[in-house]
């Protein structure tokens, strides 16, 4: 390492003296960023802080040390970073950061808004921040509120682009060929488009969910196609609770909640195309399914059942009524329990158990 000049040495001495405060600042910023994520409910791919090392600071000061009069002029001794999935979340976190920290607007940059109309490139939001006394104050460490730090908020795609661009030559001594820059900028444009599309899709999906929930609440189930989202909304309305309680009453059993999404492909195969079809399937078969449950559970002392029992027995009844027989039952057990020869034996046992129930003679 070359000999450090006097000015650089002074700044490095200040850095060493400030290190305990910087470490405390790091803790406070880190905790604050984590809390922002918790409070907002935003899902991020990363939230992190890092303190500039002496080695990195020395390199920086050797390049442009004369720019800084004191250690407080350096704004990236501490860096914080959020990496989000969606561009909308960058804006939401930025708004939160503006409320939590003091922002140095003269030195903060939203590179997303800096580009010319015909250019693409590194997109990121950088805020230069300070911890206000309302957030943290320690009379033993008044310097803490003076130190500026950098907060970077970007999407996963922006982060990928920036990281790869950095890795392949940004800031190196060799001039980057124009063609390479053009190719990287083409990619930046494509990723920006992809970011916007992801946000748009999320917004549309949320609108769709709200519409479906409204239709379910209004009982217009025939208008709702059966898919993962709609079935989930339907189940949130607890359409099987009363029926499960009726079954539980056979043995005064407790009901354990279990996931029911596994029934989605089964219901589709049974011919349900809309939530209305599911509702009809349930209502048309629930009395027979109740007889089946009573027949199976009534002679036992089992006093615990799962919340899947109602739907499972309704499917068994539907399969039997459609003439699915042993093959149909095995298919159901394969779907619920994973494929296996033991399900054939189970289908045999079930068939034998229920052979005299009234619905077994319907086809």
């Amino acid at each position: 390492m070359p000999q450090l000049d006097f000015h650089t040495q002074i700044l490095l001495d200040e850095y060493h003296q400030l290190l305990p405060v910087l470490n405390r600042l790091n803790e406070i910023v880190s905790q604050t960023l984590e809390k922002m994520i918790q409070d907002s409910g935003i899902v991020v791919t990363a939230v992190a802080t890092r303190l500039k090392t002496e080695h990195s600071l020395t390199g920086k000061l050797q390049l442009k040390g004369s720019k800084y009069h004191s250690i407080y002029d350096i704004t990236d001794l501490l860096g914080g970073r959020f990496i989000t999935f969606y561009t909308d979340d960058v804006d939401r976190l930025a708004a939160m950061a503006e409320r939590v920290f003091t922002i140095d607007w003269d030195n903060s940059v939203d590179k997303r808004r800096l580009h010319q109309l015909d250019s693409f490139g590194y997109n990121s939001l950088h805020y230069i921040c300070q911890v206000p006394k309302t957030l943290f104050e320690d009379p033993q460490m008044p310097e803490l509120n003076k130190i500026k730090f950098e907060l970077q908020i970007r999407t996963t795609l922006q982060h990928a682009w920036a990281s790869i661009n950095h890795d392949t030559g940004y800031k190196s001594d060799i001039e980057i060929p124009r063609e390479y820059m053009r190719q990287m900028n083409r990619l930046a444009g494509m990723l920006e488009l992809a970011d916007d599309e992801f946000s748009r899709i999320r917004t549309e999906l949320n609108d769709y969910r709200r519409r479906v929930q409204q239709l379910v609440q209004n009982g217009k189930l025939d208008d709702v196609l059966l898919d993962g989202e709609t079935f989930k909304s339907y189940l949130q309305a607890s359409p099987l609770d009363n029926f499960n309680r009726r079954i539980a009453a056979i043995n005064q059993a407790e009901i354990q909640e279990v996931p029911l999404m596994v029934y989605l492909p089964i219901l589709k195969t049974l011919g349900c195309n809309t939530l209305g079809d599911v509702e009809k399937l349930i209502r048309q078969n629930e009395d027979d399914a109740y007889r089946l449950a009573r027949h199976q559970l009534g002679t036992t002392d089992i006093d615990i059942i799962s919340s899947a029992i109602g739907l499972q027995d309704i499917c068994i009844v539907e399969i039997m009524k459609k003439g699915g027989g042993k093959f149909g039952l095995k298919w159901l057990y394969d779907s619920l329990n994973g494929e296996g020869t033991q399900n054939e034996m189970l289908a045999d046992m079930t068939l034998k158990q229920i052979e005299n129930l009234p619905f077994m003679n319907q086809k």
Partner: protein
Amino acid sequence: MTTIKQEGNQYVAYFEGRLDTAAAVTTAEDVKPLYDVTNSEIVLDCSKLDYISSSGLRIFLSIRKEAALKNNKVIVRHISDDIRQVFVMTGFVSLFEIQ
């Protein structure tokens, strides 16, 4: 009587005899070491289990619940047809991976 053995990356609980109300108190104590397991596979071996009651099912459910919190996978293996029938009758058949 329930024995727990570590076999490679798996923690295997061997159940024997009848897992009814009378046996449930002891069994619940026997399986407690499984609640400390993390990031592993827990196997509930039922090859010597003759009968399971509601109390036994509750123990299986507790193991599964704790396992889910600690990123463990639970497999139920070698169950008799009668016990498999209990899992079906109660609707728990889709909750466990049964081999």
